[in-house]
C-alpha cells in the first residue's frame, strides 16, 4: 500500500534522513522504532508532505506522492495523526472530527456517510462522545490524542500514520491507546506507527523497522525483532537496562 524507496529529507541544510526504504502492506500494522533524534517523526512528516523530500520515491498504492503538497497527499488518502496531537484548539470536538473528513465533505474523496462515521468515532472513543461540544483546547492530553486519532480516521484513509500516540500520557491511558490501535488493526486498517515505547509497539505490530541516525538499521517481523538481543540493548533503552536489575 505504501512503498518508500531511498527517501532523503531534512530541515534546511541539516539532512536527517539519509535514504530510507520501507514498505507497509495493505491491512498490516508496521512500526518504526528508534532512539530520539533518529528521524522517526521526520520520516512521517516527509511521507505526509509536511516536509518536502530532496530525493527518493513514495508510492501510495501505485501513485507517486513524493513532493506533493500535504493537502494533496491527504486527498489521496494518507492520514497523519501528528506528533504533539495538533488538534484545533478553538473548535469543538465534533468540528475537529468533521475537519478530518474535509476531503470527503468537499468532493475530493468519496463521501459515504460522514455523520455515521463520526458516530462510529464517538463509539470507539466514548470519552470524546461525552465532550463532543467542548473546545478541543480544553481537553486533557489523553483526550486530545484520541481526538487526533479519530480525526485522522475520519478521512477513511488508505494508510494511517500515527506519530507517538503514547506521548505525554499516563500509563493507564497509554494502555487504552494501544488497545484501540489493536482494534484498528483487527479492522484491517493499514497503519504505520512511530513509537518511543518500542516494546509496546513491537507487541502490537506485524512488522518493524529500526531507525538509527536517519538510516534503517534493522527490519523484520515484530515478533522476531522483539527478541533480538541487539535491538533490545540498543532501542529498548532504560527499560532494557532496568529489566536486568
Amino acid at each position, binding site marked *: 500500500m505504501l512503498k518508500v524507496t531511498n527517501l532523503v529529507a531534512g530541515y534546511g541544510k541539516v539532512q536527517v534522513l539519509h535514504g530510507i526504504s520501507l514498505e507497509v502492506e495493505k491491512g498490516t500494522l508496521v512500526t518504526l522504532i528508534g532512539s530520539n533524534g533518529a528521524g522517526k517523526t521526520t520520516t512521517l512528516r516527509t511521507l505526509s508532505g509536511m516536509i518536502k523530500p530532496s530525493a527518493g520515491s513514495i508510492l501510495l498504492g501505485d501513485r507517486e506522492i513524493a513532493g506533493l503538497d500535504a493537502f494533496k497527499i491527504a486527498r489521496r488518502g494518507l492520514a497523519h495523526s501528528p506528533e504533539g496531537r495538533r488538534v484545533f484548539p478553538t473548535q469543538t470536538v465534533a468540528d475537529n472530527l468533521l475537519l478530518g473528513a474535509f476531503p470527503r465533505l468537499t468532493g475530493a474523496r468519496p463521501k459515504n456517510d460522514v455523520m455515521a462515521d463520526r458516530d462510529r468515532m464517538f463509539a470507539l472513543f466514548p470519552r470524546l462522545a461525552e465532550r463532543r461540544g467542548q473546545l478541543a483546547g480544553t*481537553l486533557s492530553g489523553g483526550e486530545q490524542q484520541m481526538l487526533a486519532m479519530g480525526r485522522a480516521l475520519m478521512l477513511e484513509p488508505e494508510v494511517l500514520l500515527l506519530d507517538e500516540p503514547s506521548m505525554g500520557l499516563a500509563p493507564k491511558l497509554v494502555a487504552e491507546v494501544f488497545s484501540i490501535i489493536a482494534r484498528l488493526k483487527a479492522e484491517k486498517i493499514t497503519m504505520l506507527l512511530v513509537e518511543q*515505547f518500542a516494546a509496546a509497539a513491537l507487541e502490537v505490530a506485524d512488522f518493524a523497522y529500526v531507525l538509527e541516525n536517519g538510516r534503517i538499521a534493522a527490519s523484520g517481523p515484530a515478533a522476531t525483532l522483539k527478541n533480538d538481543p541487539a535491538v533490545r540493548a540498543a532501542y529498548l*533503552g532504560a527499560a532494557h537496562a532496568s529489566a536486568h536489575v
Partner: protein
Amino acid sequence: MLVKTAIRTLIVAALVIAPFAVTSPYYLHLLVTIAIFAIVALGLDIVFGYTGEVSIGHAALFGIGAYTAGCLVMHFDLGFWPSIVLGPIVAAAFGGLLALPALRVTGPYLAMVTLAFGTIVQILINETVDLTNGPLGIKLNTPFFLDLRDYGDTWSILDMSLKRMRDVEYFYVTGIALLLAVLVINRITASRFGRAFEALRDAPIACDCMAVSVYRHKVMAFIISAAFAGFGGVLFAFSEQYIAPNTFSFDLSVQFLLAVTMGGRKSRLGPILGATIVVFLPNILADIALFRIVVGVIAAIALCVGLYAVLRRRDLLPKLAPPVALCILFFVLALTMRSITDFRLSIFGLMILFVVYFLPDGIVGAAKILLRQITPAFRKRHASTQAEGEASHAITVTTDAVSADALLEVRTAVMQFGGLRALDKVDLAVTAGTIHGLIGPNGSGKSTMMNLLSGIYTPTSGEILFEGRSIAGLGSSQIAGRGIARTFQNVQLFGELTLLENVLVGLHHSYKSTLLDVVLRLPRAIREERAARQRAADILSFVGLRDRADEEARNLPYGKQRLLEIGRALALDPKLLLLDEPAAGLTAPDIADLIAIIKAIRARGISVILIEHHMDVVMGLCDVITVLDFGQKIAEGQAAAVQANPRVVEAYLGGAVAA
C-alpha cells in the same frame, strides 16, 4: 579587504572632487540631497536590515529633525550648529516614544504604529501653527561659516567674519556628515550592540536566554535609527532653506525603505546606492526620453549580466530568466508609453514589487551572491583575533562561596496549558556543583521544566528559587543575567554570525562600555572588545571549535552546532547550565567529546541540569537523576537506584501493555 579600501578611497575622492566636476548648482544640490537621504537610509538600515523590523515612519522622524531646526531658527534665532545637535536628540526622543510600546509585541506592529505616527506628525505640523507656522512652512538660511573661497584671493586670514555658507561649502558639510554617519554606523555594527541586533533577528529566544534583551536592543536600534533620521532632517532643512509639512509624507517613508531594500541591507554601500537612485528617480520620471534611455540601459545591463551568469552557470537560468525578461518587457512598455507623468506612482510601485521579488538582497547583495556563485573563491568574513590562549582560563564561575545548599529549588511548580497540565506540582532541588539528570518519556514535562527555569514560561503556580531568590515571573534575559544559561533541543544559533561572534553575544554581559564609548572608540571599548575576543577564542578552544572561529554558524555540521551552543552558553559565566538533549542527533565520537566537555564543565564548579535520552550518557554523568512522567516526579536518586525503581520501569515500558 583590498576591494573595500579601494571603494572607500574612491568614494572619499569623489566627494572631494565633486564640486569641481559638477558645476551646475542644480546637480550639486541633488548630490547634497543624495548625501542626506543616504544618512537617513543608513540609519534606517540599522532597524530594517539588522533587527529586521519595518519602519514606515522615518519620513516623520526626518521631518521632526527638520522642524526642530526650523523652530529653533524661527523662535529662538538659533542656527545650524545648535540644530545639528538638538535635531537628532528630539527625533530620538520621539523614536523612543514610539518604539517602547510598539516593540513589546513581535510582528508587524512597529510597521503599523510608525505608519500611523507618520500621518499624525504631518497633521500636528499642519495644526500647531504657532509652533510650526502650519502649512505655510518655515524659511531658513544656510548656516554661517568661514567663507572658504575668499581666502584664495585675499589671504586675509585675519578676516574671520562669518558669511552665509554657499552651496559648495554646504556640500562639504553634508559630505563630511555622511562620512561621519558611515563611520559611526560601522563602529556600532562591529560592536556588541551590532552583534546583538543581528542575533535577535536570527534567534530571538536564544538571544534573550543569553541575557541580551531582545526588546531593549530593538528599542535601542530604533532610537539610534531615529537619531540619524533627525540628523538628516536638520541637514535637509538647511539645504532646502524651506520646509513644509507636505514633504514629510508617507511616500517619502516608502522611498527611504526602497532605498535600503534596493541598495542592499546590512551594508554601507547599499543604502548610499539606493539613496542615489531614489533621489534621481523623480528626474528620470519627469522626462520620457530620459526615462526610456535609463530603462533601456537597465534592460541592457540585466541582459548582459544574465547572459554572462548563465553562460558560467547553466543552472541559474530559471532563476534569472524572469527578472531579465521583465526588464526587457518594461523597456518595450516604456517605448510605447506616451507620457509618464500620470503613472509615476505606479512605476514607483512596480519598482518596489520588482525589488521585493527579484532583488530581496538589494543590488549590493545580489552582486555579492552572483560573484560568489560565479567565482567560488570570493568568500569573505572579517578576520578574528588570532591570539593564542589557554583554554583552561576561559571558563570561570563567580559563585560567591559555593554552599552545600540547593543552588536551585523548585517548589510545587505547576504549568497548565488549556486542558493540559504539563507539570503537576513538581519539586526539584539542584545541589551546587553537581550534574542533575532530568529524564522521562517524551511529553513528560522535561522541556516544559527547562522553559520554566529559563523564564520562557511563567509557572501557573509554585516557586522557583535560585540562590535563595525567587526567579519565577522574571523574563528570560533577567534570569540569564542571574546566571542560568541554556541550550536548546532544536539548536538555536545565530546563523549569520560567525562562531566567534556567537560566543561574543554570550559575552555581551561582560562589557561595561556604553554606546558612546563604542562610537567614540574610547580605549575602554577597544580594550574590552579585545579581551572579549580573546575569551571567546578560548571558549571555542574549550569546546574544540577554535579552528573554525570565522565560519558562519549555519554552515557547521549539526553535531558541532550543539557544541557551539554549549560554548555560547558558557560565555554567560553561568552558575547553572541547562542542557536540553545535547546528544540528540550526535554521532558516537561526537558524544564522547560531549561527555568530556560536560565533565570539564562540572570540574570548573558549574552545576548542570541535563535532559537526555541516551541513557548511557545520563547514567554515566549524573550525580542525581529526577524522573518525570505525565508531568509528575515519579522517582529521584542516584543512577542505579532510579534504574531499579519499578515505577520508572513501568513509565518507560508504557504501563501494563508491555508488562
